[in-house]
């Protein structure tokens, strides 16, 4: 066996020593023949005869040399080397063609790599956890009340942990954390930080190991345990200056000392998986005993036992969850959960699957258009090079050899395009990975990896074969003698070429049409989404997370809130200001509400309702519309009045057809008086229906979770930021440097996945349109050049300039019409497939179809007009005289 290794090694080595080996064997052969001649002479032959016989015995010297080369080296490499040398020579000579081809390929392949990387990251690659296929997300089966119905109480979680038989472990995290809920107090001004509370065993369940220090211990989840934290890798690097001795050190977190027990690995990005578009800085233990009365707040993740299927676990859960009590302390609150088990990966990417596949198809179409376009360019070149190839065949080059030569050219173009495309994709991906606010899961983890490189190789070679083989076969198959004999442009050959090129252009137009219609439908949906009445005015408002220390005193809190609000109102340019603990389209939580007087046996009789603990002025600052009744007063807070403002959905559900003002509702377990009704606000996202909502004053009954000051002003947020921060610092010098963010950002965040897809598909459609118009231009322009004489004759016979123009444009339109016709039929079929992605837009939306066809027609007309004008400028005398 080892001789073949040695032989292979020597063969490769021989590649680089070709000349020397040739020289040696040539010398050897010369000496050989010389020796033979000498021997023949000794036998008494004449000098001529001796040489003749020696040469006959030796056989062909050239053949022997070829055999020697074949035996010692890798002949195909030599052929390839020749082909490559020739290719580079050709491409240098035809630089314009090479540049255009490489450019088109770079765009096509680059876009494909970028989209594939995103698809790979979100859909294909396993989650970056140990045995990720065992990980399961557990939510309620009918999650109609936002995050609260995707979560469970501490008691229910513990019961499930203990009683289930399908999971190795079940853990979770506190689902209602807003950004910047902590502040890191250090040397300078306090810095905002986002921390997530995680239940015991959370990291162990995921299989995440710390890169420094250790994970939390059981005793750290006990009531009154010493406060500890795990920090994320970026936070450790940025805020704790990557201190390697950080483990065991105490940091000041929101004015209490917390011991850092470990640093999580760089590969663990909580936000990317569980909360797209947010960054999480640190983790602290979720101590169950502190949250027993707080209702549903844990989002559950479990790891299945070895060999247990999702279906078995689901059956287990279906049996168990209905038996679980909400709270052990209050069995009268009732029992009865549901649990829908979904693989964590599917849970994370489920909603995006279809969009991503559409995106993948769109970018595939682009590559197809690129290939068709290049085929077309190559065909045009083939026409120009047909003589060269006929000559080479006449000189003995085999058909296979010529096809190989052409394929080498295509492969070289594709390789250069692929390499540059990889660079382009890298740039796009680095940009995408840093779009922190994009609500796409895992996007921060997007990168060029081995799979992506394989994919690049695959599509580059695939593209080369696709666009290289048609012209290659066509050229090598052409009639040798006809081409060589023919001195002028052969009419019949030209026609055949023409027909093939026209077919290609029609294909291109049809593909571009499909892309355009798809992009048009998505764009129209996106515009519809932007047009939705959100129930609040996102523009001209901005919010900032407010830090304060009320020492647990409700009256003091009300005073602080009032001071912050009233001081903010004195800032020049501020129209209104107010505080809420939750903002729309960010985190949410829900309680139950019911009309007093009706029978409420258990929790199921309550309407799930989103809860906002607010100050007076908040509704106005957000631009929410009070339909009837009044806003809160500061008196309501100061006097702990049990009042509530509901939205129209709640009013309709609790008191259909009656005036709710002054009626008593049971909200969050308290009897409260309805004092106002506001128009519905889109809570979870622009495209979801507005749910039930209520706004409660921050009193001793209803404690807020954090506080956001919302300020409405015509001035841009950036201009106000400094004065707002000054105001907050005047009230509380410990106010961390949280960001003053426009409310529009929340809306943009919620619509960002749709924006992302529309932007990409739209870009692809424009690219497709450009390529298609290039194709049209190429074909028409070529046919005008070929028909110069014919046009000259016609004009000499009296055809007018406008007639010539009309003729050429007519030809263009014929191509465009056929292409659009095919494209529309294809679009009608394909649009059905993206129907689920559309919003208030029919897949057959006539306006989109007409609009897109008009755009395509106009571009086609323009692409045809330029050569048409050239044709009409032909001087018959000149045209006839040439040749």
């Amino acid at each position, binding site marked *: 066996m080892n*001789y073949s290794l040695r032989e292979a090694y020597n063969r490769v080595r021989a590649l680089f020593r070709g000349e020397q080996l040739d020289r040696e064997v040539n010398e*050897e052969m010369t*000496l050989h023949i010389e020796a033979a001649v000498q*021997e023949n002479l000794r036998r008494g032959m004449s000098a001529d005869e001796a040489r003749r016989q020696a040469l006959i015995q030796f056989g062909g010297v050239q053949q*022997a040399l070829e055999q*020697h080369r074949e035996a010692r080296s890798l002949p195909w490499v030599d052929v390839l080397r020749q082909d490559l040398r020739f290719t580079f020579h050709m491409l240098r000579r035809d630089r314009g063609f090479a540049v255009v081809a490489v450019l088109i390929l770079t765009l096509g392949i680059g876009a494909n790599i970028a989209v594939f990387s995103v698809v790979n990251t979100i859909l294909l690659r396993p989650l970056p956890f140990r045995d990720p296929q065992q990980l399961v997300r557990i939510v309620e089966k009918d999650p109609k009340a936002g995050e609260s119905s995707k979560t469970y109480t501490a008691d229910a979680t513990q019961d499930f942990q203990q009683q289930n038989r399908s999971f190795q472990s079940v853990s979770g995290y506190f689902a209602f954390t807003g950004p910047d809920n902590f502040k890191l107090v250090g040397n300078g001004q306090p810095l905002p930080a986002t921390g997530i509370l995680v239940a015991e065993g959370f990291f162990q369940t995921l299989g995440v190991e710390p890169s420094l220090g250790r994970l939390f211990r059981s005793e750290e989840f006990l009531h009154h345990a010493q406060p500890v934290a795990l920090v994320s890798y970026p936070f450790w690097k940025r805020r704790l200056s990557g201190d390697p001795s950080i483990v065991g050190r105490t940091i000041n977190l929101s004015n209490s000392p917390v011991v850092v027990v470990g640093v999580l690995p760089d590969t663990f990005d909580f936000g990317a998986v569980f909360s797209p578009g947010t960054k999480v800085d640190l983790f602290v233990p979720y101590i169950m005993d502190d949250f027993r009365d707080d209702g549903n707040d844990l989002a559950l993740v479990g790891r299945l036992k070895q060999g247990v299927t999702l279906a078995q676990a689901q059956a287990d859960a279906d049996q168990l969850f209905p038996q679980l009590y909400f709270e052990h302390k209050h069995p009268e609150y009732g029992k009865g959960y549901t649990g829908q088990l979904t693989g964590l990966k599917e849970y994370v990417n489920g909603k995006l699957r279809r969009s991503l596949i559409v995106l993948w198809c769109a970018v595939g179409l682009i590559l197809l258009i690129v290939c068709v376009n290049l085929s077309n360019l190559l065909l045009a070149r083939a026409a120009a090079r047909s003589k060269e190839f006929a000559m080479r065949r006449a000189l003995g080059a085999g058909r296979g050899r010529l096809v190989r030569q052409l394929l080498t050219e295509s492969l070289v173009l594709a390789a250069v395009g692929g390499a540059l495309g990889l660079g382009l994709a890298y740039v796009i991906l680095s940009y995408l990975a840093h779009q922190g606010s994009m609500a796409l899961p895992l996007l921060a983890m997007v990168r060029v990896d081995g799979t992506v490189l394989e994919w690049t190789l695959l599509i580059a070679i695939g593209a080369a074969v696709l666009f290289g083989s048609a012209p290659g076969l066509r050229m090598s198959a052409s009639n040798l003698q006809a081409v060589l004999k023919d001195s002028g442009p052969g009419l019949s050959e030209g026609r055949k070429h023409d027909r093939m090129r026209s077919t290609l252009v029609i294909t291109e137009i049809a593909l571009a049409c499909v892309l355009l219609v798809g992009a048009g439908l998505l764009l129209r949906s996106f515009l519809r989404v932007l047009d939705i009445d959100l129930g609040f005015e996102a523009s001209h408002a901005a919010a900032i997370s407010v830090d304060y220390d009320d020492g647990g005193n409700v009256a003091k809190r009300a005073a602080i809130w009032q001071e912050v609000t009233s001081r903010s109102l004195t800032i020049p340019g501020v129209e209104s200001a107010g505080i809420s603990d939750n903002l729309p389209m960010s985190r949410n939580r829900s309680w139950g509400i019911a009309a007093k007087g009706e029978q409420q046996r258990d929790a199921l009789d309550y309407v799930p309702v989103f809860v906002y603990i607010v100050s007076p002025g908040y509704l106005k600052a957000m631009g929410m519309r009070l339909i009837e009744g009044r806003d809160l007063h500061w008196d309501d807070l100061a006097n702990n009045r049990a009042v509530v403002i509901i939205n129209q959905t709640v009013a309709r559900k609790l008191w259909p057809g009656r005036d709710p003002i002054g009626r008593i509702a049971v909200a969050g377990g308290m009897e409260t008086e309805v004092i106002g009704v506001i128009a519905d606000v889109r809570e979870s996202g622009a495209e979801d229906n507005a749910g039930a909502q209520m706004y409660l004053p921050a009193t001793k009954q209803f404690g807020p979770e954090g506080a956001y000051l919302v300020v409405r002003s015509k001035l841009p947020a950036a201009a106000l930021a400094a004065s707002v921060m000054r105001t907050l610092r005047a009230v509380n010098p410990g106010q961390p440097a949280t960001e003053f963010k426009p409310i529009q950002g929340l809306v943009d965040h919620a619509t960002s996945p749709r924006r992302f897809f529309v932007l990409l598909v739209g870009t692809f459609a424009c690219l497709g349109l450009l390529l298609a118009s290039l194709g049209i231009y190429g074909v028409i322009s070529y046919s005008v050049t070929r028909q110069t004489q014919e046009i000259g004759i016609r004009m000499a016979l009296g055809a007018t300039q406008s007639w010539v123009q009309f003729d050429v444009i007519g030809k263009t339109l014929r191509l465009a019409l056929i292409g659009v016709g095919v494209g529309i039929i294809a679009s009608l079929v394909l649009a059905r497939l993206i129907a689920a992605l559309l919003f208030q837009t029919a897949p057959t939306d006539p306006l989109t179809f007409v609009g897109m066809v008009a755009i395509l027609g106009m571009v086609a007309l323009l692409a045809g007009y330029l050569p048409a004008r050239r044709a009409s400028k032909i001087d018959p005398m000149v045209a006839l005289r040439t040749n």
Partner: protein
Amino acid sequence: MAQSKKLDLLQGTLDVMVLQTLEVLGPLHGYGIARRIEQVSGNQVLLNQGTIYASLVRLQQRGWITSKWGTSDNNRKAKFYSITKVGQKQLVNDAAYWQKLAGVMGRVLAMQGDGGER
């Protein structure tokens, strides 16, 4: 065989012939090897002498023979090939193979019309 057609060389046979020649005769140059094979075969093999060089380079790259420039008896410059230890081992194997094959071929071709049953 009145016409005495020359034998076409089977794949790999030339390599064995070269090895055997070198094994028996010691270091030789290309021309010497070619002549020797012609003589031994009684000019029965169809050998373009030039093909010997492909065989030589192949054997050399496999490490079965080595080469060295030197001078021949009549004081001419020539490249001399000699068999290596590995080459000798290979030759033993190859020779056994060819002898076995020759035997089998002989038996098969000697088969009689009614011999199939036995």
